[in-house]
């Protein structure tokens, strides 16, 4: 249970949780931390840059000495100027900001690292992800495999065990803030939780050869019930797809993509990727 320590460690607001859910998603966690970094980074950046420009302008050369200064002369042995106190004060301040920021995120790191697996819950869906030149294979606990299409239920933790059969890849779904290296001979683990049904794209984030740019997979987050239906018998589900899509349209917000899917439903991979990736 790492999450509570996070709020103790944090000098700022604790990370949000899902209402009624013990864990925050990686999306929330990332947005929160990123926002804080962005805000502080922008402030620090503006202050430091302005201060630099202000001094450069204020002390611009006016062609004459305005006071008694000991300017450097050619041939002197290089030495420094005083002013160490101010230097150390600023240094100390910046160090405090940086260290406390990163220390604050460390709690979140422990949380992400420990992941929901530490809970030992059976509720998690475990999927094996195998990268290859140039695509992704997903294997479910019941032995079912899919290529370039990952279907997961909404609102349920999905744990990924990732490897590769040939070269180094990196599996990442930017929308869901999940990413891990796919290294031949080794496995990496990560997890994510998608709150809402919807469609996302997984990319390869490590240069892996000529087809690297095209190495995309669709990630389809389904209603839990619907997912169960698919999971029980994927083949039957696919055959029955048109009917399902009607359900989706009735039950959910009618997505334009779904309409497109109906037109050429036989090659869904291309269509979904095509909806996001303009060619």
């Amino acid at each position: 249970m790492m999450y509570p320590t996070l709020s103790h460690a944090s000098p700022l607001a604790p990370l949000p949780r899902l209402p009624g859910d013990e864990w925050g998603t990686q999306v929330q966690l990332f947005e929160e931390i990123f926002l804080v970094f962005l805000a502080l980074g922008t402030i620090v950046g503006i202050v430091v840059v302005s201060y630099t420009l202000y001094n450069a302008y204020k002390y611009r050369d006016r062609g004459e000495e305005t006071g008694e200064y000991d300017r450097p002369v050619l041939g002197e042995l290089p030495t420094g100027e005083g002013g160490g106190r101010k230097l150390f004060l600023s240094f100390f301040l910046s160090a405090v900001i940086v260290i406390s920021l990163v220390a604050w995120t460390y709690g979140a790191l422990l949380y992400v690292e420990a992941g929901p697996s530490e809970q030992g819950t059976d509720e998690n869906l475990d999927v094996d992800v195998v990268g290859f030149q140039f695509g992704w294979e997903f294997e479910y606990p019941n032995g079912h495999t899919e290529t370039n299409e990952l279907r997961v239920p909404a609102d349920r933790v999905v744990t990924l065990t990732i490897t590769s059969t040939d070269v180094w890849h990196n599996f990442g779904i930017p929308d869901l803030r999940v990413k891990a290296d796919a290294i031949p001979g080794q496995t990496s683990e990560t997890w994510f939780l998608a709150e809402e049904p919807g469609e996302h794209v997984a990319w390869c984030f490590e240069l892996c050869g000529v087809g690297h740019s095209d190495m995309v997979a669709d990630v389809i987050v389904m209603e839990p019930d619907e997912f169960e239906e698919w999971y029980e018998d994927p083949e039957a589900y696919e055959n029955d797809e048109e009917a399902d899509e009607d359900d989706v349209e009735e039950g959910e917000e009618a997505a334009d993509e779904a309409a497109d899917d109906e037109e050429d439903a036989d090659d869904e991979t291309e269509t979904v990727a095509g909806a996001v990736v303009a060619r």
Partner: protein
Amino acid sequence: MSDLPPASSVKRWLVTTNHKDVGVLYLLTALFFLLLGGVLALLIRMQLWVPGPSILSGRAYNEAVTTHGLLMVFWFLSPFAFGFANYVVPLQIGAKDLAFPRLNALSYWLYLFSGLLMMVSFFQGGTYDAGWTMYAPLNIPEYSPMVGGTTAVLALLMFVVSVTMGTVNFLVTIHYGKAEGMGMWNIPLFTWSILLTVWMMLFAFAALLGALLLLGSDRIIGTLYFTATGTEDSSLLWAHLFWFFGHPEVYIVFFPALGVMLEIFQTFSGRRLVGRKWVILAMILIAVQSFLVWMHHMFLTNINLEIKTIMMATTIGISLPFDLIVFALIYTLVKGRVQFTTPFLFSLGALLLFILGGITGVFLGAVVLDYEFRGTYWVVAHFHYVMFGGATALFGALYYWYPKMTGRMYDEFLGKLHFGTFFVGFNLLYFPLFLAWETPRRVFEYNVELITWHQLATIGGFIVAASFLIMFYNLYVSYWNGEPAGANPWEFSRTAEWAIDSPPPLENWPGRASYADGSLSFIETPSTTHAADGGQVAEPGVVEEFLEVHEPTETEAVHDEPHEDHASIWPFGIGVGLFVLFLGLSGLHGAELQGPHYLAAIAVGVGLSGYALLGFGFEQFHAPEAAIAERWPFEGIGKTKLGVWFFLASDVVVFGAVIGAFIFIRAGMGWGAWETVPPDPLPGLVNTFVLLTSSFTVILALVAAERKSKRGLLGALGATFVLGLTFLGIKAWEWSYEFSIGIYPQTSIEASVYYVTTGLHGLHVVLGMLIAGFMLYRIYSVDAYLEDHRPVEFFGLYWHFVDIVWVFLFPLFYLM
């Protein structure tokens, strides 16, 4: 030995060993590779104008991305910085040249020819395409099959050899050649930054050399180091080796730019650096710590949480000294008289860009954020702000020292126009990439919502490119028509290069530079007021107030050398020879000869480089060396010996990387699961005795040389040579026996490691014997080393080192 022709002659530029000439050659060559890498960058940006394939195929895009990275990092950034280092460092410390001028010329020629080799690789069915990080196993021929890929790896290998020689040279120069009165704390900051850069280079590039030797052997001989498919052993081996080099490399390319900023901020604010000692200490801390952060490039691999935590802490730790340096720069402006000249604008711009790069780097230091940023344009934008932002200061350096190098002022208006265009273009190019950060790296497909940012970046890219046209125009026109600059065009400069004419005469100044009385003076002795051979008479160039004439002290009288050389054709010859040889080696790609012309190239290359090396060895060359200089902490050790020590230190790291790779793979497999390759330890045992005996005979040789006994020296060194031959003979017999029972380097990972590691040692033995053979010939023919026995001692150092390595290899490969 030959005289140096005038600067208008082409021959001059082929034979020169003078640090200023070599510096100019470095600068021009680096700018050429900037153009080449820049064109590739524009191709990338054009491909990204809209998502999806357009002007480049998948492979061509990968080649562009890869070679853009390699060219900019290796063939532009560091060599550009070292152009300035070559020109300025000896001037700043009061030396007449680098410690080993011919070696310096050789470094340059190997750099140039390695770059040419890189260019040739494009025409061998495609160049290397697996990213500048060269991750395994994408880097082996199975996945990266083009012959040009092998050539690119060899080009990098050659480049690293050049860097290693340059490193040793600069270390000795700075530690050994500072003017009297200039202690470590008084070294000008640009020189300080170069000193720390070369210290990092000495170890970091040695690790890269080790990694490239393994990769080269995988690509050429077909060994199995990075064929990690399906095993756990070596899949992270490359990443560890590469990033152990790769992270220090970030500071290696940044430090010279930092040194330039420190120098230019002082000159154009009319202030001395605030907190100077602390800045120096901060830089030392960074240099040391840079070797302890490399795994932050691997946060998403399965390295465990404890290691991630340590690496996170060291990473954050290394960012803090930079904060101090940045604040020191800012506070130096306060109470100054800031002159907004072109060099200052570029340095100020570099500082601002670096601040932005630094802040966005803190994001990456937080591991949870790094998880999401990994492999995205956040990283791309960040490191361009840091590395190219740093290079911004180097363009400032170009304007800063341009009057010194050419004797003419650049056009200030065009300079400022260059800066304005560049700075706007830079931010238009890279800032949108932060906004489009979700784009995966090295991919030309992206979310179409991000298209505006990518198109802005492309426009920015072309603006940056255009700004360089202004620079080239300015520098070209000013070279012919610029105002004469005089010795010192800057009001508040203070380092020694500004106390002599622009451009400085061949030997920089009459007599020797000295800070003994607290400020610079050039101390002439009546005997040194002759004209340097082939050069100009030095006196007219010196700012007169610094000139002193006095009678020679005893030390000077002894060391007074009547003749100093500045020309040798052999470095160029060795460069050509190795270029042909390496080109030939690329034809062995994948253990299959790609054509007979490659074989011919190998033969010609060996012949040429052998001939040139002999010429190099036989040439009498007197390098300028100051009789009186600050040498702490190496007062008690000779110049060449110090160089040998530095070289051996880097060689220790090369062997460390190669032996470390063995231990890494073996530990990954399970220590006991490793099968010992040699069927019988006996030949290895005999060879151990042979080598240990040869160490003893080398000592006897030194004793004989000290006693001036030619026969004794010939006998003992001859015995060493024979023992070396015996070692190689036994090794040859052993290997041929192993081949006969079907154990080849390609047979198994164990065999690969065995052959490569002991083979690398064998190459060291061969090199040692070539040197010993050369020395024997010289003793026999011209009674060499009897008057000055130091070369025998240097050879002995090397030979002992090679023997010690074997003492480690024997138990590792035969007994365990």
